[in-house]
């Protein structure tokens, strides 16, 4: 369609600034600018600031001076820090295994037709969407030393005769926070894996069944390999969130009893904000970085390999 310019009337040209947006590179620059500014100011800058802080002797109200790697040497010798590192790995490892196993099981239970499926699916996601701090308080109340409903139930079922001091005993406290974390994480695994399961054609399973494959063999040789890419991405998110977890432990135990549930983040908070040793707190937070980095790189490489295959 040809545009016929009316004689005497100047064809209105776009003002130069807008014309520049016709160039893909300028448009991209303009579109990415707000994101770049916000992420630069509140992620890149704090990261640099965090590194500088961890190399200084800053406290609340005292900017401090450069001390090199002294803070890192100090936390390396700190037995509470070592406990926190060990706890973080244990907490992340155990919860991830359970979340994956239970989430996959739940996903397979949901991956069929039954009445009220949409409703069940909507309800089971609740632990994941309700603010963690608020639902964790419900758990803390359920684990209360004197008024525990869990103890009441176990007692009346005849399983225990003495009360279980869930949050007061070091080992049980760790078990308790692991239970709550699994409870919160299973819905995310289940719903994500369910989406993955739904992309697998049922004909594959039926064909294998006709060829005589048992259910377990069908799962292991068909479902699991096809689900692996989704599984790996879900694990990646979950592992990072769990490794850096703070709010759940802060509410349940505050890191206690006797630092038995102290994680990287809770210990960094306790030293950095609680005691005011900013530089040491920043060093503990940053000590998470190499671990997170290795986890992310390893999982991304593995995901790429799985996807190529």
């Amino acid at each position: 369609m040809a545009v016929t310019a009316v004689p005497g009337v100047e064809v209105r040209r776009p003002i130069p600034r807008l014309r520049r947006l016709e160039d893909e590179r300028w448009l991209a620059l303009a579109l990415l600018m707000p994101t770049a500014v916000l992420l630069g100011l509140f992620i890149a800058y704090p990261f640099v600031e965090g590194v500088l802080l961890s190399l200084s002797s800053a406290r609340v109200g005292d900017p401090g001076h450069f001390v090199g790697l002294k803070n890192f040497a100090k936390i390396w010798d700190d037995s509470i820090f070592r406990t926190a590192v060990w706890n973080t790995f244990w907490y992340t490892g155990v919860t991830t295994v359970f979340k994956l196993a239970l989430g996959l099981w739940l996903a397979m239970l949901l991956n069929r037709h039954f009445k009220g499926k949409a409703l069940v699916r909507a309800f089971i996601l609740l632990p994941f969407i309700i603010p963690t701090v608020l639902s964790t308080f419900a758990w803390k109340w359920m684990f209360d030393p004197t008024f525990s409903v869990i103890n009441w139930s176990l007692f009346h079922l005849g399983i225990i005769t003495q009360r279980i001091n869930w949050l007061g005993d070091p080992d049980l406290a760790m078990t308790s926070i692991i239970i709550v974390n699994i409870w919160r994480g299973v819905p995310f695994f289940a719903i994500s894996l369910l989406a993955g399961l739904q992309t697998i054609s049922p004909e594959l399973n039926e064909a294998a069944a006709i060829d005589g494959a048992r259910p377990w063999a069908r799962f292991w040789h068909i479902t699991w390999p096809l689900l692996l890419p989704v599984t790996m991405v879900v694990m990646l998110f979950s592992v990072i969130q769990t490794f850096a977890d703070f709010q759940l432990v802060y509410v349940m135990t505050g890191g206690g009893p006797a630092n038995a549930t102290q994680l990287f983040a809770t210990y960094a908070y306790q030293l950095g904000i609680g005691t005011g040793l900013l530089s040491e707190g920043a060093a503990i937070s940053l000590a998470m970085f190499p671990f997170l980095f290795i986890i992310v790189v390893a999982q991304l490489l593995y995901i790429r390999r799985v996807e190529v295959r």
Partner: protein
Amino acid sequence: MIEGAAWRRWVFYNIPLILFVFVLLFPFYWMIITTFRPDGELYRPWNAANYMPFWTNNPTLEHIKYLFEETNFARWMLNTMFIAVSSTIISLFCGVLAGYALARLNFPWAGALGTMIFITYLVPQTLLFIPLAEIIRNFELGDTPWSLILTYPTFLIPFCTWLMMGYFKAIPKELEECARIDGASRWKAMVYIIIPCALPGILSAGIIAFTLSWNEFIYALVFLSSPDEKTVPVGVTSELIRGDVFFWGPLMAGALLGSIPVAIVYSFFVEHYVSGLTGSVKG
């Protein structure tokens, strides 16, 4: 699905599913029952006689009343709402534009930038909260809602961008080309053709961003200090526990009421929420 006799269906599917649903929902039931239970019944030891933990015959509103009369709960709700809505709008604005640029435009470093945004997606809040608190203090944003409205986008934008990239990639290029042939500028084609097509994605991203900001805890805990400025999770944690004394009735009432806005938003848009969640995982 190959299924056998009815009893097998019960043993292998229905009973496990019922158990899952029971365990996943029980804490919420417990929250509700505690909210309406009078203190006299609440603080009965677990092994007391005639103790009926799962039901109450004397429901009361005293805990909810306490919450609104003795604490700033209403204020916390408003604060959280304001912060969550504002940071969601900012993040959607940035995320939609950035997602469009990364999905649709050819420019140098596009791949590297995409990877960088994905990496920031993986940065947990607990990694940077101490230096960020210093920066917030230097910018004189401490103890104001802006300290959160401006920092929440750091974890929301990468998520929105990543999700929107997926949606934009799924929209056929021809649609945009048609608009361009008809004389629309790139900017207009994006605003009037492509973004409306991606509305379901924007809705998903918005709902998830809203629930994530409602859920955020450590930044709010560190950046806010006066009782009037707090968000629901922080207010409930700091004002309903005095020393070692837990006010369990008001605490559970606060947890229940504080969950309601998120639950309402979620219940209206379950499908969008789920598609956003699974979309973000597929990447």
